[in-house]
């Protein structure tokens, strides 16, 4: 067999995996690979900071469902990527990150730009590798893609010593990957499915509580079928938004700390909670002993460690969400005792109760004359994009308002850092999503604080023709922290006032983008219309009411029924 260089082998592996775009930033340790990239048809997107590369790969992955790929140099290049790797890890996003490493002979010598990135990222990757034998390079890359995208997905890092990449090696044919130590359970246990379905037939006040797993496994159709077949109301975690249509009458929107009143009340009063691809995060459950206290709990998840981790589960189903939901649907289709009409009739009082909660305390906010309410900006974005844009968010109040007021009807439309809550995620993720779907409108709902954490990526957006729209809800504060200080620290605003902020309109111009500003309510619509009409990169700066709060709010450690309301 003829031999090729490590660089050539890596490119061939990427092609084999169908990778057409990668995000990266060069340096000495990866210069060979960059040289080889020039001759390949893979598009390389040069970001302006390595955190941006991994977030962009992550946004690309979340929007498309494909594996996102990033390439970083050794040392500071690799460490700059860590926050974004941890972000992908917390949200189970399939990403493969290649990092350069010093030559094998120098490893452990504190060589120039040497860092133990495998050690550093061990707890925030699904798995990682240091390739120490050139003959294992190809197999390692194939395994990495397999691991990243199968089971519960996640980021995988491959550390590439420079001399390994420069070595000559053969390129064996690809065979199906079988790992004796890794065999995710995809198909549900039929006995458990039957138990779960029977519990559904018995329940009087059932609730579906769905998370990011539904989106990761592309199970939204199966989920909608189940919810409608049995008339079960659906509440979603931040990561689950879009897993069930936000405008469906059975949708109660988000639950948890900033969830809707109806969602939190319904979970608390339910007698059956069907958790699908969700992990009972503390932002969802609030005080644990008061979470769904009357409910029998079914939990579908591909990761056994998620089951009974925080909350005891009565009927666990370890499986891919799509497979498990499909099995439940067909059980009902086949079951003699199942009578769809009768079930709907039985659930009527429950649905009426839920509707009453919704009427009593809908998601809302107070108008204040001319002042721009941040929630209003999201409502107008929703209206003018027909609810069909890809929305990325930064972190903070902006993120929660986007989650509450944009109605996500499709999966993979909301890209947001849920688990880690990484400020600076939204802009690079938007660029990744836009490169995956050049014809879609992509909007980063931003805060004035977060946007400054990766604002340098505006240049990347320009260079690669990724005309995303950034909508800054500019409150002049690190608003979410300020809200906590207002409510729980006697309004002592320690380090949350942004005393100096750039002029975002001028800043847009400096990057060759369009800068637009709205300072009164009636300017909001025209600004958004103009932003959506241009083909260019746009920053919209909305001067919003400064001390607006996100409500409902469950104070940390309280029961989810103890909500502070508007």
């Amino acid at each position, binding site marked *: 067999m003829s031999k090729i260089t490590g660089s050539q082998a890596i490119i061939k592996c990427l092609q084999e995996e169908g990778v057409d775009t990668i995000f990266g930033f060069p340096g000495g340790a990866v210069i060979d690979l960059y040289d080889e990239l020039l001759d390949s048809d893979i598009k390389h997107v040069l970001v302006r900071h390595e955190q941006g590369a991994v977030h962009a790969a992550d946004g690309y992955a979340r929007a498309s469902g494909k594996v996102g790929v990033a390439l970083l140099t050794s040392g500071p290049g690799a460490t700059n990527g860590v926050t974004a790797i941890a972000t992908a890890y917390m949200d189970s996003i399939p990403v493969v990150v290649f990092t350069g490493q010093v030559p094998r002979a120098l490893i452990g010598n504190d060589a120039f730009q040497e860092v133990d990135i*495998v*050690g550093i990222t*061990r*707890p925030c990757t*699904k*798995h990682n590798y*240091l390739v*120490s034998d050139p003959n294992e390079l190809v197999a390692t890359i194939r395994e990495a893609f397999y*691991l990243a995208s199968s089971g519960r997905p996640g980021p995988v890092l491959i550390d590439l010593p420079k001399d390994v990449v420069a070595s000559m090696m053969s390129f064996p044919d690809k065979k199906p990957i079988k*790992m*004796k*130590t*890794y065999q995710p359970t995809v198909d549900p246990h039929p006995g458990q499915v039957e138990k779960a379905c029977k519990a559904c037939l018995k329940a009087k006040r059932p609730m579906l509580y769905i998370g990011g797993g539904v989106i990761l496994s592309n199970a939204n159709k199966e989920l909608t079928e189940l919810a409608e077949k049995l008339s079960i109301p659906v509440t979603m975690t931040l990561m689950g938004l879009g897993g069930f249509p936000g405008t469906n009458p059975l949708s109660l929107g988000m639950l948890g700390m900033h969830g809707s009143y109806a969602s939190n009340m319904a979970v608390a009063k339910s007698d059956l909670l069907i958790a699908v691809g969700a992990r009972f995060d503390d932002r969802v459950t609030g005080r644990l002993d008061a979470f769904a206290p009357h409910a029998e709990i079914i939990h579908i998840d591909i*990761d*056994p*460690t998620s089951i*009974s*981790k925080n909350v*005891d589960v009565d009927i666990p189903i370890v499986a891919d969400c799509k497979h498990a939901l499909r099995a439940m649907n067909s059980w009902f289709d086949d079951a003699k005792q199942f009578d769809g009409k009768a079930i709907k009739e039985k659930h009527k009082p429950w649905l009426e109760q839920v509707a009453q909660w919704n009427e009593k305390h809908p998601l809302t906010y107070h108008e204040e004359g001319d002042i721009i309410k941040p929630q209003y900006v999201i409502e107008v974005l929703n209206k003018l994009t027909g609810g069909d844009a890809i929305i990325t968010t930064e972190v903070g109040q902006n993120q929660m308002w986007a989650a509450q007021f944009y109605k996500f009807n499709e999966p993979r439309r909301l890209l947001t850092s849920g688990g880690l809550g990484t400020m600076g995620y939204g802009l690079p993720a938007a660029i990744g999503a836009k490169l995956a779907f050049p014809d879609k409108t992509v909007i980063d709902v931003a805060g004035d604080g977060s946007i400054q954490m990766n604002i340098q990526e505006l240049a990347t957006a320009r260079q690669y023709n990724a005309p995303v729209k950034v909508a800054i809800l500019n409150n002049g504060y690190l608003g979410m922290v300020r809200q906590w200080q207002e409510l729980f620290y006697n309004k002592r605003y320690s380090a949350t006032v942004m005393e100096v902020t750039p002029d975002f309109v001028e800043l847009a111009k400096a990057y060759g983008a369009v800068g637009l500003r709205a300072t009164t309510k009636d300017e909001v619509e025209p600004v958004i219309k103009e932003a959506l009409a241009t083909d260019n990169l746009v920053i919209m700066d909305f001067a919003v009411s400064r001390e607006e709060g996100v409500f409902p709010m469950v104070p940390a450690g309280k029961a989810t029924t103890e909500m502070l309301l508007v």
Partner: protein
Amino acid sequence: MKHTLSVLLQNKPGALSRVTGLFSGRGFNIESLCVAETLDSKVSCMTLVTRGDDAIVEQITKQLHKLIDVIKVTDITEGEFVEREMVLIRVKAEANTRAEVLRIIDIFRGKVVDVSPTTYTVEITGQETKIKAVIDILRPIGIKEIIRTGTIATARAPKN
């Protein structure tokens, strides 16, 4: 409750730190940990002693299993098992106590593995309770150093 877990894992660089990192990162406790190659040189066996209620031990077992380098996790405390630990004890052995130390060691079927004018270093193997008993008895004589291996354990083979 004390649990002894037997973990088979790939004999690869970093595999051990994945396990220890899991315990420190998630706040699980490790009482002792012993690891070495098995018959198959590509596979290591680790005996890990931990403490926790059933829910915690279940979570530990699942989390270990989730590590890509881990092949198999068995909670051997769930069935019949044998466990052993070895300890090296350097104990004062002066003219007036030498004979007594030897007698004690003999009772516990230990061996003297090193001698100095004022000390014996003795080797004892057994279950944790036995090790504890030896230490308790030798302590009044004057123990200078104790080195323990930590427990290794295996499930008993089926008898039919």
